[in-house]
């Protein structure tokens, strides 16, 4: 197990290195001069030069050949790329060009909002998806199965942002049941502890806030959770059908084990393994889907922050935000692989 873990983590290094390289390339190629974007077209050239100096943009991109004669071979690495990599390895993602706030600080500030939304979406996907999938499998070929599978197919075909708008229109505008945007009503106060508002309101026993937080969370979570929900339903059904046709399930039935026990004790546990994979992979989809959902719901998470940064060409933010999501995605996939060993004792990593 330890060997496997080490091998997997070592295997992540070249991919994450590649991701950082691609992001560096992408952000350096973004058209437009950040110095001009920051100071405006009519800024004096001296001020622009000074700012480029401050932002490290006056250095050569890859290798600083001119510095070699002054400072020897080490001067070669006094370039944009090597400064970027050096900072990255120290966990320093730079500062936002506009607000001058360190990217890492903003990330840590905003990640709880995105995490809470993603977890809520995943919870909906699992709580609704697994029973629906099992139910469809048990009624295979009948009306209930067709209905559930049609709904599931629709679920993967929705444009997330459109679904979000429709939900707001229905439940916030027409029915007026739920708030249309943000995480908390203006009149509600909540002491942040973990910045996961649901948890915070429970920890501080602030039940008024809890109610408000949940009301704000419902619509975005449904919008973001629809695709994973549909995927979980489809996966649970097909995996369940496969398990139900196995010999040991027939044996259990012939022994006289009741339907409920066959399904919950014998079939479901084994059917859930592929579902775990799908859930893990969907977590990445959730993080990227968050850009669209957060934009529509004005949700103050990473997605909306990256979206704003793209419009403003704030490239340290774009770079840091996307890198953070890619790393999170890689780690979640690693955890999913490792969790197999816990769920399925037949699997042993060596």
């Amino acid at each position, binding site marked *: 197990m330890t060997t496997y873990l080490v091998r997997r983590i070592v295997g992540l290094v*070249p*991919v*994450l290195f*590649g*991701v950082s*390289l*691609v*992001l560096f390339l*992408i*952000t350096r*190629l*973004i*058209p437009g001069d950040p110095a001009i974007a920051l100071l405006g077209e009519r800024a004096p050239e001296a001020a622009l030069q000074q700012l480029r100096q401050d932002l490290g943009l006056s250095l050569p991109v890859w290798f600083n050949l001119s510095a070699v004669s002054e400072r020897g071979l080490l001067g070669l690495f006094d370039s944009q790329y090597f400064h970027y990599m050096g900072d990255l390895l120290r966990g320093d993602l730079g500062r936002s060009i506009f607000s001058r706030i360190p990217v890492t600080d903003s990330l840590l500030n905003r990640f709880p909002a995105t995490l809470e939304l993603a977890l809520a979406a995943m919870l909906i996907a699992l709580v609704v998806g697994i029973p629906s999938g099992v139910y469809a499998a048990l009624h*295979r070929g009948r009306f209930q199965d067709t209905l559930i599978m049609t709904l599931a*197919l*629709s679920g*993967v*075909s*929705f*444009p*997330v*942002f*459109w679904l979000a*708008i*429709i939900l*707001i*229109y229905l439940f916030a*505008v027409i029915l007026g049941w739920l708030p249309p945007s943000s995480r908390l009503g203006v009149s509600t106060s909540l002491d942040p502890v973990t910045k996961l508002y649901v948890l915070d309101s429970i920890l501080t026993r602030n039940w008024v806030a809890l109610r408000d937080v949940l009301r704000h969370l419902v619509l975005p979570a449904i919008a973001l959770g629809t695709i994973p929900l549909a995927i979980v339903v489809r996966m649970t059904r*097909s995996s369940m*059908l496969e398990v139900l046709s196995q010999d040991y399930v027939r044996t259990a039935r012939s022994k006289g084990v009741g339907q409920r026990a066959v399904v919950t004790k014998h079939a479901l546990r084994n059917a859930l393994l592929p579902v775990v994979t799908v859930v893990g992979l969907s977590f*990445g*989809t959730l*993080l*990227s*889907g968050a*850009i*669209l959902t957060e*934009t*529509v719901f004005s949700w103050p998470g990473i997605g909306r922050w*990256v*979206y704003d940064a*793209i*419009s403003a060409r704030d490239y340290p933010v*774009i770079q840091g935000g*996307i890198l953070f*999501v*890619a790393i999170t*995605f*890689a780690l979640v996939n690693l955890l999913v692989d490792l969790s197999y060993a816990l769920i399925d004792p037949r699997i042993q990593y060596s």
Partner: protein
Amino acid sequence: MSSSENIATAPRSRLFGESVMGDRIREFFRHTTGVTGLVIILAFVVVSLLAPVLAPYDASRDRNLRERLNPPSAEHIFGTDELGRDLLIRVWHGGRISLRVGLIAVAVAVVVGTTLGMLAGYVGGWLDTIVMWFMDILLAFPGILLAIAIVATLGPSLTNAMIAISITQIPIYARIIRSVVLSLRESEYVQGARALGARPLRIVLRHVLPNSLSPIIVQLSLSIGVAILDVAALGFLGLGAQPPAPEWGLMIRDGFSQFLRAPWMSIFPGAAIFLSVVGFNLLGDAARDVLDPRLAE
């Protein structure tokens, strides 16, 4: 099996060609959902192709400020937008954009991905390592994130959105083909062909490509659906098609700013995206049922 049955079935199988593909095609047409998907897609294609004939449209000139934000009526079935443009016509012409982008983006991804996967699998060694490393990097960005990053670099436009979506789909095809090549490379008949002196190109064209067709066809339909969703998402974020193009995602973006006063502006383009993607997903699901016997129930 009696001889009379044999005689009865013989002409029919000859009619369709005695190939596995013929069987599969016949099987597909017995698949209700698959046929439904095919009908939806064909309807979209025909309607989109006919758009310039039946309802010629110039997005840059079409505006009628007297009829701003009219709700759906007999005259404007889908209503009008904030510039008084008829939404039915715009949604109709939007289909051309989505279908075109979906088809081109996926076609490019298939060609590039297939070539890369073939090279990686067949040549192996360092080339395989480098190509698959690069594919792993592309796959490390979840969902639409890579497309967003690419468009942010290239600048927002429909063409760039198409390029970005294409790039995100390349690794899917590269991986499929590489795994087919690897499983075939050591197979006896490929070994046999090689022993007979067949050149690598001939082996690839005669043995590898035909064997890769099934997984590619299954993936194709699903990919086009994803491409249609992605281009709409980029349009919605302002990173894809630019005004006044009647692109569905961009129309929803316009609609979102007006959705308290004119919800129909977002509802109809969204419904069009949904319906076309459902079509491709139904077709893809049916293709998988028919072509991939391992998944058949």
